[in-house]
């Protein structure tokens, strides 16, 4: 059963405020590019050395030297700048990126994130994920609530090697929007049509749910 990516994308787009500097991870988060209106004057940062990228329109000429960190051809929006990798990560480590969106293999109750390595199965490298997770002010996770076998990805504690500890601010899945708080994972929104019981059943982590305050999306 494919999960509802559109629901995640539409909900995640609401996290972006006008005039922010935003980094979009590989995979689902990179599609957020198409959800940011030009008038928001948002600048998208890519690790490979651009602030102010935007997707190429299909009828636009391609500059083969212009890609984002995921390898897609892009172009610039007004106010863009291009720079080397050390400058790009200085921006990340100095907290100059307002929010970053990433996928996840596992997230847990204290905001630990695992998204780079499955020992013995998958270890293509770290890329920029570790520094983004550790240093960007606000890290929003976008992922399916359960893996393709139905196993929960929102856990009590991550079991895979961590990308960074205690780094996640908010988790947006196809089933819920959850905030990492000192008390644990607090449900902000539940996907339309899903009951609290169904959400709890699909989740390993304990969830704090105040039914009177939970919204839907």
């Amino acid at each position: 059963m494919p999960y509802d990516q559109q629901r995640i994308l539409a909900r995640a787009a609401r996290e972006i405020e006008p005039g922010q500097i935003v980094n979009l991870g590989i995979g689902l988060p990179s599609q957020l590019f198409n959800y940011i209106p030009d008038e928001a004057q948002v600048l998208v940062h890519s690790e490979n050395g651009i602030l102010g990228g935007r997707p190429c329109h299909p009828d636009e000429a391609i500059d083969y030297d212009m890609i984002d960190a995921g390898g897609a051809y892009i172009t610039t929006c007004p106010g863009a700048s291009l720079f080397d990798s050390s400058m790009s990560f200085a921006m990340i480590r100095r907290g100059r990126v307002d929010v970053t969106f990433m996928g996840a293999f596992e997230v847990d109750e204290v905001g630990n994130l695992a998204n780079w390595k499955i020992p013995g199965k998958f270890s293509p490298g770290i890329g920029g994920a570790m520094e983004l997770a550790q240093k960007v002010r606000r890290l929003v996770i976008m992922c399916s609530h359960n893996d393709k076998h139905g196993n929960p990805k929102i856990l009590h504690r991550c079991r895979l090697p961590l990308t960074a500890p205690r780094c996640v601010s908010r988790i947006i899945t196809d089933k819920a929007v959850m905030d990492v708080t000192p008390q644990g994972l607090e449900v902000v929104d539940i996907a339309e049509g899903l009951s609290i019981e169904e959400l709890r059943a699909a989740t390993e982590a304990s969830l704090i749910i105040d039914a009177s305050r939970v919204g839907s999306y």
Partner: protein
Amino acid sequence: MTRLAQKLTTVEAAIARIPSGATLMVGGFGSPGTPFALLDELLAQGQDGLTLIKNDANEPGIGISRLIEAGRVSRLITSHIGLNRVAIEEMNEGRLSVEIYPQGILAEKIRCAGAGHYGFLTDIGLETDIGMPRREIECEGRNWALEPALRADFALVHAGLSDRYGNLIYNGTAANFNPLMAMAADEVIAQSFQVEEPGALSPTTVHTPCAFVSYLVQVPMSSSEQGRRAHAV
């Protein structure tokens, strides 16, 4: 961070953010790149007990020397103040505490803060007395001096050309410490002779990306005339 559309402000409002006792980086090597208009406003507003970080002390009567002469600077972290007899006198009389680093080490300490590291290990000055005790660490059979990163509460920088988002381009030798300081301070106030709409600058020619700039002030070219005279010796 300040939102992109809200960076352009007045010199008064930008400088009013700085409290007495703050640590300030000030761009410029001699006059080029020195943010004269921001410094003159700081003089007018009266903040004191300042710690300044600048390559040099400008020349008597201009730039940070005005602040030093007015007794508003308690500490200066620098590389060379040989062109400013007033600053040397203030130092010798004990009224100004001066901390001196080799110029490239000062630049790297600032850049290191800008890159988000704790510090770096160097062999510069290992066998000479640079007047500062430095921790040494042995690596691969040799000793290296640990230079901690140097940060600041504010950086005051000067650009020749910019856009409204705060992308900066420096003219001539006016870059010097400016791009490094723009990375290293918590809040960065940039002055620029020319502020264009976003899209006016070619992205590969931007020296300081707008992500590092908190506030931007447009200043007239005449604000740097003091500095021009100073170098026209």
